[in-house]
Structure formats: C-alpha cells, structure tokens
C-alpha cells in the first residue's frame, strides 16, 4: 500500500471527527522516507539472503563441475575423471540398487504397521507409533554402530550367542554385507512411508468402503478395489522419498560400506574430498545424484497431485476399526519385531556399551562404569565442544531458518508483492538437493577465498539453514495460512501498522506452529552428518563428525557414551515437543 503523497493533503488531520485520530494522520506532510516502499526493500533483502543460501551454492556446484581446477577454463575433464573409471560408475549403480532394496525393506516394515496403527484394534497402537517415531529421530549412524555391536560377524552379540547355543562355527548374521547396509538404512528411513501411509489410512472415510460393501463387494474385493488404490499414491510418495534419502545418506555407508566391500556414491564423494582435494571432480560426480533427485521428486509430485490423493486428503470421516480377533496379538508381535530391529535392539546394546568398560564383556557389575560419560563430557575436549556446537548450530539454524521462512511465507501468503512466488520456490528448492551435494555446493561457493569461510561455524550454520529451509517454510506457510487475513486487517483499520499487526496478532497466534517447526529443524540439525562432513574444520567439528571419528579410532565405548548423550538430548527435545504440540507433531508432513 503506497502512502498518500499528494501535496494538498497536509491537512489530512481533519479527516476524522474523532478526538483521537491516529498519530500518523496528524503528522501532516508525509515524509520522503515513507514514500519508499519498505515492502519492496524487504523483498530485495529476502531475495538477497536466498541467493546467498540457495542460488549461489547450487549454481557454484554446477559451474565448478565444468571448471578446470588450475586454469579456471571450461572443461568436461571433471566428468571424464568422475565417471571415466568403471569403479566409479559401479558405485553409482550400487547406490541405486541399495536405494531400491532399502525401499523394499522399508515397505515391509512400514505398511503393515501403518495399517495396524490406523485401521485395526491392535493393542498398543500408541506404543507402536512412539516406537516408529523413536526409530526416526535416532541418528542412523548410531543405529549402524548398534548393529555392528549386534551383528559383527565374530564379536557381535547375536553371533556370539548363536555360536554359544549351537556350537556353530559360522556366524549367523553379518552386518558388513549388502543386506546389513540395507537393514540399517531401512531402520531409519521406513518412517516416512509409515507416516504417509498412516495418514492416508486415517483419511479414508469408512463410508467409502461401506459404499463398496453395500454394492456387493466383499472384504478382499473392497480392499483391492477401494482401500488399496486410495493409499497407493501415499505409499509411492513415501517410497520415493525413502529412496532419495537413502541414496544420499552418509553415516550408514561410512560405517558399513567399506567393510562390506560395497562402494557407494557418498563414499566415492568422500574419496574425492580427501587429500589431494578434488572439489571439481566431486561436483561433477554429484550432478547425477542431483538430477535423479529432481526427477524423482517431480514424479512424486505428479503421483500425489493425481486424483487419487485428493480423495484421501479430504477430511477424515468416521472410521471403523477392523477387528483383528485372534490376530490381535500376532499383529502386535510383528510390530514389536519391527520396533526391536529398528530401535530397541541396536540402541539397547549401544547404551549398554556406553556403561561398559569393554563392550564385549556385557552385563557384569565389574564391567559397569560411568567413566565413558565423564570422559566424553569433561575430558575429551573436542567432544564437549562438538556437543555444544551441535546444539548451538541446531538452535541457530532453526531460529534463523524459521524467521527467514516466516518472512517469505508472510509475503507469499498475503500476496504483498509481485514475484513472491519466486521467493517461495527458492525456499523449497533445497528439498531436491541431497545434503552431501549441498555441502559440496557450499564448499565450492564459500569455503575458499575470497569468502574463505572454511573452518568457521558460519559456513556450517549457512549450510544447515539452507538444508532445513523447506521444513521451515512449509511450517511457517501453513501457520500463516491458518490465520485469517482479516485478523490483521482488523488491526490496521483500527490504526495499527502492518508491523503492529505482526507483533500483536500474527506472532502470538503462530507461537505453537513456530515452536513445532523449530523443533522439526532442531532435531535433525543437531545430529546432521551428511551436510557437515565436508564443511567441518579442525576447530569446528560437530557431534556427528566426532562420533564418526571415534568409530574410526575404534573407541566404541566412548562413541556409545557420546551417542547416548546425544540421544538423551534429542529424546528430551522431542518429548518437549510432544508435550507442547501433541503426540503426532512430527508425524504431520507437508511435503
């Protein structure tokens, strides 16, 4: 809204008969400064920030991949080097194969449990949901460590017990294999399919199924013709996301893929990022990963936007629970099995190791110690610092990300400015960039002189903000959507400016939504590894990287202790979120 700037309105004060005209109208001639459109300046400022956070790193990634490291000239040499070796190409196909297998296993985990939680009278449904959530919020690299303790071929608990019991000479399970890799991946990523599918099941009105029944379709026919087609888009959407997340996950392959002799893309990238550093080749090597992600997310959008999904995205109606009868407990046993594999077993042995002098000795009073905690918290200078750094970075990126996203979402939702859609697009764009690829982009754009942010927390914070900006934006946008614009107009017509409206009405009303969004960013940011791995400097390490270093040093007890501390923090924060926002606050997904 442009302020009035006519010469003759210096007597604007007399507009109102009321005694207390709002101060602004008294001021007479409207000053030059207020003729500027502050909203346009804000747009420019936000656009500039988003260019720094999103546009520059991505374009720098692409440019770098075509740049000769020494001459700076255009070249395709990086691609030749990246994909010239059969081994490097094999890693890409290995990765795709691993992603596909992870999806299959995730479906096996997620869909039955989702159905049981949403549509049946299985006992312990809340417990089941919390367990699934637990598997999701725990860092995947800690799950991998837990599984190494469980299923290392010789010393793993499962194998030792197996050999003890049966006298067998061969181990029962081996985590250092393709399927071990897939199991640990799926343990963390199946949650997305679970959420999507549960939501879809909950959205199906029983009347839709009743309608089929009344027309003569039996239970199975109804399931096949009505229920399944209705949840199919949700399952597919979740499966695609699972695939994308698993092919870009760093922590699990870092621990398992080398011993499993199964080279994957992220490990190849970290080889390029070794010394001598070949950022250009790493950039070139990561471009296909980026393209695959963009293509599959496009496909996912297409699937979700088809008619099938709108049918389930409507208001959930009355739902009839399926009575499982004698299958109630077997169903629960399956849920328990999934929860044991994905959460309880690995984290139980991890926490046990944290309290052990030697993790292989297991339960014994003589083996019990708090020394590991004392050491990682107070003596190991890096781990304490890294813990503080991770929490601060998580908090900072959540806060800044939310504020930034809130500004953009406000402009977009209130249609304050033309071109706001561009800002929204930029906020959502990082969603298509795998964390590790984003890190290469940030490295290429900002690590080296002239910007020279390498080894600073600033670089990490920028990358984290960008990484989680889509979450921040969808949380903010849905929050603002829920506030009727008239709430603000009421402030303005009574004499308050737009800022007053935001401060007195919008902000208080958004408190809960924003707190939820903040936690949704903090939880993954505090444990983020993929984005951090190439951006940490000698003095700026985060807890995930220190944990990985510890695994390299073989200090599994210390690792377990530090990991347990991290878990306690994460669980506490999530519990706080559940307290404030209800059990399902992490289960709602906009994307």
């Amino acid at each position, binding site marked *: *809204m*442009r*302020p*009035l*700037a*006519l010469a*003759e*309105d210096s*007597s*604007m004060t*007399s*507009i*109102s*008969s*009321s*005694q*207390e*005209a*709002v*101060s*602004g*109208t008294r001021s007479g001639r409207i000053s030059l400064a207020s003729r500027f459109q502050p909203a346009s300046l804000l747009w420019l400022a936000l656009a500039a920030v988003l260019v720094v956070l999103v546009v520059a790193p991505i374009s720098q990634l692409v440019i770098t991949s075509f740049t000769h490291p020494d001459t700076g000239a255009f070249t395709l040499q990086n691609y030749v080097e990246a994909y010239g070796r059969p081994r490097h190409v094999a890693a890409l196909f290995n990765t795709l194969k691993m992603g596909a297998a992870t999806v299959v296993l995730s479906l096996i985990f997620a869909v039955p449990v989702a159905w049981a939680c949403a549509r049946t009278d299985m006992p312990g449904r809340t417990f089941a949901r919390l367990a699934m959530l637990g598997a999701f919020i725990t860092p995947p690299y800690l799950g991998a460590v837990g599984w190494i303790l469980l299923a290392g071929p010789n010393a793993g608990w499962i194998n030792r017990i197996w050999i003890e019991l049966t006298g067998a000479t061969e181990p029962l399970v081996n985590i250092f294999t393709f399927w071990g890799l897939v199991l640990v991946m799926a343990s963390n990523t199946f949650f997305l399919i679970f959420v999507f599918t549960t939501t879809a099941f909950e959205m199906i009105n029983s009347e839709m199924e009743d309608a089929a029944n009344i027309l003569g379709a039996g239970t199975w026919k109804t399931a096949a013709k009505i229920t399944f087609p209705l949840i199919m888009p949700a399952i597919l959407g979740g499966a695609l996301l699972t695939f994308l997340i698993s092919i870009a996950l760093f922590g699990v392959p870092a621990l398992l893929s080398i011993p499993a002799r199964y080279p994957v893309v992220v490990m190849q990238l970290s080889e390029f990022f070794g010394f001598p550093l070949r950022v250009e080749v790493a950039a070139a090597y990561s471009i296909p990963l980026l393209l695959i992600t963009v293509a599959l997310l496009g496909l996912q959008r297409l699937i979700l936007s088809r008619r099938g999904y709108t049918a389930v995205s409507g208001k959930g109606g009355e739902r009839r629970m399926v009575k499982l009868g004698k299958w109630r407990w077997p169903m629960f046993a399956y849920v328990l099995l999934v929860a044991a594999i994905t959460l309880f077993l690995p984290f139980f042995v991890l926490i046990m190791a944290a309290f052990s002098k030697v993790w292989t000795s297991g339960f014994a009073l003589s083996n019990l110690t708090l020394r590991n905690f004392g050491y990682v918290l107070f003596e190991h200078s890096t781990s304490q610092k890294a813990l503080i750094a991770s929490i601060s970075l998580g908090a900072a990126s959540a806060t800044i990300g939310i504020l930034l996203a809130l500004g953009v979402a406000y402009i977009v939702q209130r249609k304050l400015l033309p071109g706001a859609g561009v800002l929204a697009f930029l906020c959502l764009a990082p969603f298509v960039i795998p964390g590790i690829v984003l890190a290469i982009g940030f490295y290429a754009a900002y690590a080296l002189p002239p910007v020279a942010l390498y080894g600073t927390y600033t670089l990490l914070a920028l990358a984290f903000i960008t990484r989680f900006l889509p979450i921040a934006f969808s949380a903010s946008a849905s929050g603002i959507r829920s506030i*009727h614009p*008239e*709430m603000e*107009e*009421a*402030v*303005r*017509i*009574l*004499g*308050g*400016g737009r800022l*007053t409206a935001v401060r*007195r*009405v919008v902000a*208080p*009303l958004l408190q809960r939504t924003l707190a939820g969004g903040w936690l949704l960013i903090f939880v993954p940011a505090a444990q983020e590894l993929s984005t951090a791995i190439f951006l940490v400097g000698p003095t700026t390490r985060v807890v995930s990287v220190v944990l990985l270093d510890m695994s390299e040093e073989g200090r599994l007890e210390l690792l377990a202790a530090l990991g347990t501390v991290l878990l306690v923090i994460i669980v506490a924060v999530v519990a706080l979120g559940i307290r404030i926002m209800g059990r399902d606050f992490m289960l709602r997904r906009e994307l």
Partner: protein
Amino acid sequence: MTGLALRGLGRRFGTVEAVKDVDLELKEGEFVSLLGPSGCGKTTTLRMIAGFIEPNAGTIELGGKVISSPSASLPPEKRGMSMIFQSYAIWPNMTVFENVAFGLKLRRLGREEIRRRVGEILDIVQLGDLADRYPAELSGGQQQRVALARAVVIRPAVLLLDEPLSNLDANLREEMRFEIRRMHDELKITTVYVTHDQSEAMVTSDRIAVMNKGRIEQVDPPVELYMRPRTRFVASFIGRTNFLEAKRERDVLVFDGFSVPVSALAIPLADGNAVTVSVRPHALDLSAQQPAANGRIVLEGKIARRAFLGDTWNYLFAPAGNGAALIVSAAPHKVIEDGAPAWLTIDPGQLVPIA
C-alpha cells in the same frame, strides 16, 4: 463534516473490471448498504474505502480530502475508520476486554479512559460480564458483539461492515440487524454496510446502493427501492416481481390485452417505444368473482398453478389470450382452486417502468 464520497471509482484485477464508475456520497451519520449478488464488486468497493485496495480510477474523499486515488492512497491505519469483518477477526489471543481496548491503546488513551469507554461499550452490546473471557469461550453471536464493540469504541469517522451477519444462524441474524440499527441510531456513525441479503439492508439502512457487475444500479431509501426500482436487475433482485412488456403509442402504453395511459404510471416515463414495467406480486389483486373496475384494469383468466407458502398463497395467473402469466401473492384466506377461473386487478399506479 465527515461525509464520504466515491467519485468515478474503478478497480481492475487483471482484465476483470471488479468495480467501475462508482459514484456514491454519504452524508455524515448516514447508513448506506452496498447490496448485490456475490461478485458484484461490493466488497471490493468497501475494501477500497478501507484502504486495503487501491483504486485504478476515480477517488475516495473523506471530509473533502482525497484519501484514495490511483496515484496514492492513505494506508488503512491512517484513515480513522473501523471495520467489522465477515469472519469477525476477533483476536483469539486476547480477552474480550483486550480486543475492544486495542484501538484505544493504539490511540494512547489513558488507562482509566480506556477502562471507562470499554466498559460503556460492552454494556451497550450486553457483554459487560464477559470482559475477561477469551473469544474461544464465546458463542457466535457474542463474538459478533465483540466485533461490533471493538469497531465502534474508537468512534470511527466511518464504520465499515463486510457481511457481518452471514456466519450467524437465522434467528440471531434477525436480532443482530436491529441491534446494528439501534447502535447506529445511538452513535450516529457514518456507516457503509456490505451485504447480499436484501432484508438485512432494508432493516438497517438509510439508503441502499444496489450493485451489479461492478456498477451501482440504483441508490435509494429501502421503500423507494422496492416501490420504484429503476432497472430490471434492481426490480428482480429486491423482492419478487413480474415484468410486462408494452409498446408506447403516443400517450398510451399498450400491453397484451390491456392498455394504460402514460400519466397513470408510478413514475414519469423516459422516451422510447418499447417499455418494460415491473409490478410486484403483492401489488396485484386476485379474486374468484369478477370485481368492479373502478378505474383499475381487470383481466380475466385462470389459475395455472398455485403453492401455499405458509404466510401467503403464491398463484400463477394465466390471462385469457396471449398475455404472459403473472405471479400473484395473496393472503392465506384467499383460496382459489387450481385451474379455476379468476380475475386479476392491476392498479396502474403500481406499474413501474424500468430501464
């Protein structure tokens, strides 16, 4: 002098002309409704008055000063107006008292002054006991009253209401109409009221501006509007009506089956050969026996269809010959059988020629 004037006001959205050439003047203390179907431009007009939308053409003046023009507009917060929104827009994070006091606090009034004035207005809207409640604890009608109190407590130069009653149930809506009018009689605030409900507009307004397709078709007091609609749209939008086509032959209008001298019409006739007149179903009289003419027109025919609506009969009268069938309202005791012969009496003074 706080009169409000819209002059040649226009607003385009893309290629759509939402509001076009709107001229309207409100005297100080006048209550005018903008009435029309959805999409007629009434809300856009209201929001231009409020300052939420800038005009593409024309000006809005308040007290003789331009507050909106295509080149510059005073932002809403500097207009000294207030508004009641369709959604009420009661702030859920503030109590009733805080909601109502908000505008006064922005005006930096003293604590005591605020307390006194909020108390007064809450008594007027009968919410004195609920000052400390939060909006979520109030009924729809009570929320409406909070919105009303919040809007008028600042003694705005102009009060704007945007379909304020559309979210209430029927009984409450009827009650609130009178409430709004009573409030206006008490406080005499210049008011613009947007609604698509003609009876709301009738009860509350000094004058009604009927809008259609972005233009104002007619501005008149409610009775005048009903009795003497100027356009086909106004005639059909305000109440029900019959349209009759006629040809002008010098000083006489020739209808199918009867003719009327031009001088007998309700309002003077403009030039032109083909004429349409509107006649209300209530203005027609139906009888089972042939009545005496007494200078009125009597047509013979029969009942083509009938329906009992509870408080009236609704008859469709088909005149003998080629004439168009007419809808007639009759009191419940006036019973004529379906298909029976009947006579229709028309008072020429009730015939309103329309543009």
